């Protein structure tokens, strides 16, 4: 059954309730009308056949959202968002609307895929081409799925999880990022359409990176993704979100929420490679990426590690954070952010030390080029009870060209004398000496810049799962194209 047909089926099954929405829509329509209202929220919930509690939860979020002010403190600038101009529910595109073949896809996009060495079939998926043959990778995914089920790992769309294990979802959803955490997260709570749910049972080490699967199957999660990962006692999971090739997408506003929960002795490694469309040279048409990501180290000796490579989007606003609640828990944040042309990024992390002997480590590498503007914003907070807590932060910025900006805004708040917080930051440019040295050895200027930048980012690249490290490295070079000379 095609996705559209499936949606139609679903909506048909909640027959008789249509009138409640207060707007007339063809039941077969795969889009809600433009705009946001309580009715739209009800519509989304109904389309997804959600339990009553979730609808209530969404509505509560929606009402809070109406009152909440836009966050004003970041350095990114954009005209006020007209929330009424978006569609908040849109089923996967029907094949008729998609490009028929790669010939119809923006050649620049394809050129990038080419450079990254993405296989043709995968290129078609990324570019949203209507394809009807079965991928090898889909069957691969099925094999994966079987393997995961064997060890009891639940890994499925969050809407499916609501049917398979509603209690688990209900127990953890919104407990790390509360409904009204910030305006963007609040909007997500009201209108999220899908995303992933992961549950790793006690003592299980997830047998594979939950990444390959995701890459092929979870592309169309829409603009308001919601991800929830729960690692039960003593378990381990490595999750990779995103895609190393730029994603074609017509949605301008992305407000995703990711919640991680690690119980005693559990570890979650979450890696992101974000390369959404940055817009044209002036940033026109690019994605607004407003993401709330937070992990709670609830258990003793638990660990959450965020690694991100951010090269896309017109505007990035995200601060993957860790709440270090359990004693001896560990939080890590490794980040590379590259902005070029007119991109703006305000990104960083928060490490909230609550438990004893909690440690955190922040390594942030920012590269600004073109006319772009980038800010590292970080908070390290040591509560009075966090005896023996430790934080180390290293935060380096590299500027390429004299029209860009790089800013570092760390907040350090310590209320415990046995805690040690160390923060270091530098800002500089690629030295002319280095470039000349590399060029003297025959390496062309752009490649030399990419090499130096890759070296600059190395500490973070090393944190990425192997297969993505290589692509991410290429991405660094591609992102900086046209920034020298």
């Amino acid at each position, binding site marked *: 059954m095609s996705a559209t047909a499936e949606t139609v089926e679903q909506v048909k099954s909640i027959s008789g309730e249509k009138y409640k929405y207060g707007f007339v829509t063809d039941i077969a329509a795969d889009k809600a009308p433009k705009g946001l209202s309580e009715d739209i929220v009800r519509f989304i919930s109904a389309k997804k056949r959600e339990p009553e509690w979730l609808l209530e939860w969404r509505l509560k979020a929606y009402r809070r959202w109406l009152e909440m002010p836009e966050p004003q403190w970041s350095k990114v600038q954009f005209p006020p968002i007209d929330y009424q101009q978006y569609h908040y529910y849109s089923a996967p595109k029907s094949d008729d609307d998609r490009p028929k073949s790669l010939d119809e896809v923006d050649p620049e996009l394809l050129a990038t895929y080419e450079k990254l060495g993405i296989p043709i079939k995968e290129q078609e998926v990324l570019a949203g081409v209507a394809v009807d043959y079965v991928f090898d990778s889909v069957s691969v995914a099925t094999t994966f799925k079987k393997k995961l089920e064997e060890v009891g790992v639940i890994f499925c769309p969050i809407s499916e999880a609501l049917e398979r294990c509603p209690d688990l979802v209900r127990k953890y959803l919104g407990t790390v990022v509360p409904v009204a955490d910030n305006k963007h997260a609040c909007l997500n709570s009201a209108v999220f359409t899908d995303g992933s749910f992961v549950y790793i049972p006690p003592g299980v080490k997830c047998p594979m990176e939950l990444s390959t699967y995701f890459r092929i199957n979870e592309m169309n999660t829409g603009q308001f993704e919601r991800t929830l990962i729960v690692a039960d006692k003593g378990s381990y999971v490595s999750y990779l979100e995103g895609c190393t090739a730029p994603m074609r997408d017509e949605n301008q506003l992305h407000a995703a929420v990711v919640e991680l929960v690690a119980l005693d002795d559990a570890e979650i490694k979450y890696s992101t490679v974000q390369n959404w469309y940055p817009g044209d040279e002036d940033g026109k048409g690019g994605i607004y990426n407003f993401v709330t990501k937070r992990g709670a180290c609830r258990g003793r000796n638990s660990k959450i590690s965020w690694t991100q490579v951010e090269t896309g989007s017109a505007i990035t606003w995200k601060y993957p954070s860790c709440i270090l609640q359990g004693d001896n828990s560990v939080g890590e944040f490794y980040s590379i952010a590259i902005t070029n042309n007119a991109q703006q990024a305000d990104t960083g992390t928060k490490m909230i030390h609550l438990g004893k002997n909690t440690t955190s480590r922040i390594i942030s590498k920012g590269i600004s080029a073109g006319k772009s503007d980038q800010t590292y914003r970080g908070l390290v907070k040591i509560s009075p009870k966090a005896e023996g807590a430790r934080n180390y932060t290293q935060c380096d910025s590299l500027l390429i060209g004299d029209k860009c900006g790089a800013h570092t805004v760390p907040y350090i708040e310590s209320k415990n004398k046995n805690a040690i917080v160390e923060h270091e930051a530098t800002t500089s440019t690629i030295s002319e000496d280095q470039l000349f040295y590399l060029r*003297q*050895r025959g*390496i062309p200027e752009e490649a030399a810049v990419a090499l130096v930048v890759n*070296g600059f980012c*190395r500490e973070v690249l090393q944190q990425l799962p192997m297969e993505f490290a290589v692509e991410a490295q290429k991405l660094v070079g591609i992102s900086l194209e046209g920034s020298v000379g």
Partner: protein
Amino acid sequence: MLEIKDLHATVQGKEILKGVNLIIEPGEVHAIMGPNGSGKSTLSYVLAGRDGYEVTGGRIIYEGEDLTELDPEERAAKGIFLAFQYPVEIPGVPNSTFLNEAVNAVRRYRGEDELDKIQFVKMLRAKTKELNMSDEMLKRAVNVGFSGGEKKRNEVLQMAVLEPKLSILDETDSGLDIDALKIVSDGVNALRAPDRSSLVITHYQRLLDYIVPDKVHVLARGRIQKTGGKELALELEKNGYADYAGEEAA
């Protein structure tokens, strides 16, 4: 191979080279000596095409072609190699990655096939062994945390790997112990061939015991003041540069 004609060059508006003339035939090794600040490194940078070193007069003909307008990487691809007096540190970039990039960039430029990883590593290992360097140095970031001597050896390793036609060694012997000096010299001598040439900048005659030059030049006050055989080096070692100091001789 190389012909420098009445070369004038300025750095930050200051004229450093004031009419250098020099001809190096294929297969020859030339040495340049001269007091500190006389312009030796400047000459090497000008030959390699460093930004900010402006040629204000004269010509540099290399294998029949005027180099002046070429980028540093194009000159490198044409076989010009400069061993830096002060090798540059590049944090986070492993030595082997850097060499691989360099070798393949040069090969691409020449229209040759790139070496695959295995071929490259094999070649690199062999060269490393010849130069008595440890493999561990290949994994470390380029020149970062290297001792003075290690940096110089690393320059020679790069030279051995890139097999240039014209090698310019700017005080590669400074800071080397006797054993290292021998290794470096062996590296240079190994490249000696009828179609390759070297320009060796040094302050010490002792290097020239190992790398025997065809000609020795004295560069002072922006010009070649005297040219001779290797006996000139001995003479300089004895008398210093006093003869070449003071105002323009003539």
